[in-house]
């Protein structure tokens, strides 16, 4: 008897094909992923909560739909949703009915959703199976997942390093084969940066492409939902399933959603043809001082590979890039300070009584929020306060106009997409930036201008530096996710033979060691050293 292949190593579309053909069931697919996720959660800590009962019931329902479709014939099977029976992880800020959603915060411990987020409704309707929710920086404020109230997540490539953030749990869960695809959110890089640091694909679509109804809010003019997968086609399929108009989010766009997956050939030669004549801009300002030479080398190699396959590479300037960090760290905290005013200890969430109404607020919020969230609320409150509003908030909104204008000028010059690093460094060590907020903020320097301008951006793996993944960032015109997917898929095709593509995260075996330290223990040890 031959040993059964490890189903967790399949791409989501391969899992779907196996389900359609009846080679295995959704329940079997769920169990193999759940047992892996459970067994490795001590060492990786990618998950905040599991919903085994809900997931099993969804998997049984998916199997029933599959059986029924097979009985009706091949046409019925072809019409099944791509996500049917596929495990999908949700970031811990996606509200689902009856289940916990803490957004990584103590102030939401014990909170259970009263309704399903729009994207959860869409995933459930498509037959997706949600095993649980993944770890994140508290309220998505952070770039390392170390700011979770529930302790940090490790990077499957090196358990002493961060997976990036804020969607670090969702990225690590995909990289470690706990799920084939997952949901994240990206306000300043929180999908792309962890995708880059863990060696997976992460897409943040155009602001307005996906409804945020039922997503715990951070900075409402910047927040967007995104998707992780182990390749471009899988990430595209998940984005496809959640995109489109929802009247419960007034920023959600009525524009039609193209058939992303249908435009991505399985054949490598056909896929690579997308690069013929594509004009790709390389912004000189993104190769910043302080960028690691190994990261720059991998990104330059990727640009050369795109050129060799027929893309026209043009040098572009985005002159206000250096102002992105300050602009973002005024606008995002200002919006956060207003959004987080809702945590008052009265309607839901943690409540600490202090004696009178003011003391109740001070105690509830003082005990409920962690250090980074308090810093951002303070920064935002200050930037919005009387006497400082014009100097900080209005000024930042004006510079926002200039940053968006830089990208608009590149599009006007005929550039189809911009190619840049996702992050200036590979994954950093646990604890390395925890005591220096500004150093932590610099981790997003290449991603946050994209949110400031509301554009789609995607990180795809482009090799390793010092044994750790490097992300290549593709930035597109508004609503042009489709082109990013085609270019990303083409890059995968032209590098299909590269040795680094066959490597799995180097610390996967250590995740199975029951004596392995937890990420929190690793962080404590790093801080003591």
């Amino acid at each position: 008897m031959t040993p059964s292949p490890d189903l967790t190593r399949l791409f989501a579309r391969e899992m779907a094909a196996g389900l359609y053909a009846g080679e295995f069931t959704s329940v079997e697919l769920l169990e193999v992923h759940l047992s892996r996720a459970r067994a490795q959660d001590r060492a990786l800590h990618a998950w905040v909560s599991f919903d085994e009962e809900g997931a099993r019931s969804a998997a049984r329902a998916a199997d029933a739909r599959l059986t029924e479709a097979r009985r009706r014939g091949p046409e019925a099977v072809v019409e099944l949703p791509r996500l049917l029976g596929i495990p999908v992880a949700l970031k811990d800020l996606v509200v689902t009915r009856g289940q916990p959603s803490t957004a990584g915060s103590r102030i939401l411990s014990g909170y259970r959703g009263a309704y399903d987020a729009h994207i959860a409704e869409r995933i459930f309707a498509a037959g997706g199976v949600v095993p649980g929710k993944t770890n994140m920086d508290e309220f998505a404020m952070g770039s390392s997942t170390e700011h979770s109230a529930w302790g940090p997540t490790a990077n499957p490539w090196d358990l002493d390093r961060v997976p990036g953030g804020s969607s670090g749990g969702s990225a690590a869960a995909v990289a470690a084969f706990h799920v084939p695809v997952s949901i994240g959110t990206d306000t300043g890089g929180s999908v792309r940066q962890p995708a880059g640091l863990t060696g997976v694909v992460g897409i943040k679509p155009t602001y307005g492409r996906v409804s945020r109804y039922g997503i715990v809010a951070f900075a409402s003019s910047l927040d967007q939902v995104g998707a992780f997968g182990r390749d471009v086609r899988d990430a595209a399929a998940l984005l496809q399933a959640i995109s489109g108009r929802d009247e419960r989010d007034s920023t959600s766009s009525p524009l039609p959603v193209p058939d992303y997956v249908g435009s991505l050939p399985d054949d490598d030669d056909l896929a690579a043809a997308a690069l013929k004549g594509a004009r790709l801009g390389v912004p000189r300002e993104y190769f910043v001082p302080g960028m690691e030479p190994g990261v720059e080398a991998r990104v330059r190699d990727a640009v050369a590979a795109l050129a060799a396959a027929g893309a026209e590479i043009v040098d572009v300037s985005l002159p206000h890039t250096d102002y992105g960090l300050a602009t973002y760290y005024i606008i995002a905290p200002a919006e956060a300070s207003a959004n987080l005013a809702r945590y008052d200890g009265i309607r839901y969430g943690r409540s600490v009584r202090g004696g009178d109404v003011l003391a109740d607020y001070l105690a509830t919020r003082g005990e409920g929020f962690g250090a980074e969230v308090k810093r951002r609320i303070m920064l935002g409150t200050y930037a919005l306060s009387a006497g400082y509003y014009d100097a900080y908030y209005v000024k930042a909104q004006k510079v926002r106009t200039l940053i968006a204008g830089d990208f608009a000028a590149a599009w006007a010059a005929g550039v189809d997409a911009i190619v840049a690093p996702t992050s200036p460094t590979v994954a950093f060590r646990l604890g390395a930036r925890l005591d220096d907020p500004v150093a932590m903020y610099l981790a997003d320097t290449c991603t946050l201008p994209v949110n400031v301008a509301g554009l789609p951006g995607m990180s795809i793996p482009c090799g390793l530096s010092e044994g750790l993944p490097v992300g290549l960032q593709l930035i597109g015109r508004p609503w042009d996710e489709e082109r990013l997917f085609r270019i990303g898929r083409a890059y995968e095709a032209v590098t299909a033979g590269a040795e680094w593509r066959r490597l799995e995260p180097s610390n996967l075996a250590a995740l199975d060691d029951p004596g392995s330290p937890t990420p929190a223990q690793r962080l404590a040890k790093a801080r003591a050293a």
Partner: protein
Amino acid sequence: MLSRSDVEHVALLARLGLTEAELMLMEGQLNHTLEQFRVLAELDTEAIPPTAQVIELENILRADVPGPSLSAEEALAGAPERMGDAFVVPLVVDAGEG
């Protein structure tokens, strides 16, 4: 530069109860972060309009028809303290007894 009393004032505006140690740490960290923001002063933005949001959508309104919403029971399910169909809030107006 934010002084210690500025930090305390902002914390009160934000309704954040901070410990002595947090206030000390916050003063240094906020000032360090605000220093990074000074770079924006280099730019002449006199004639530049501010951008509040980046996509061209205006006045998106739903149809003005009643639809299902959460029941009182569902809306109150997460309340730390409730009384019947109401949230219990701290006393904010003195009832003026006597």
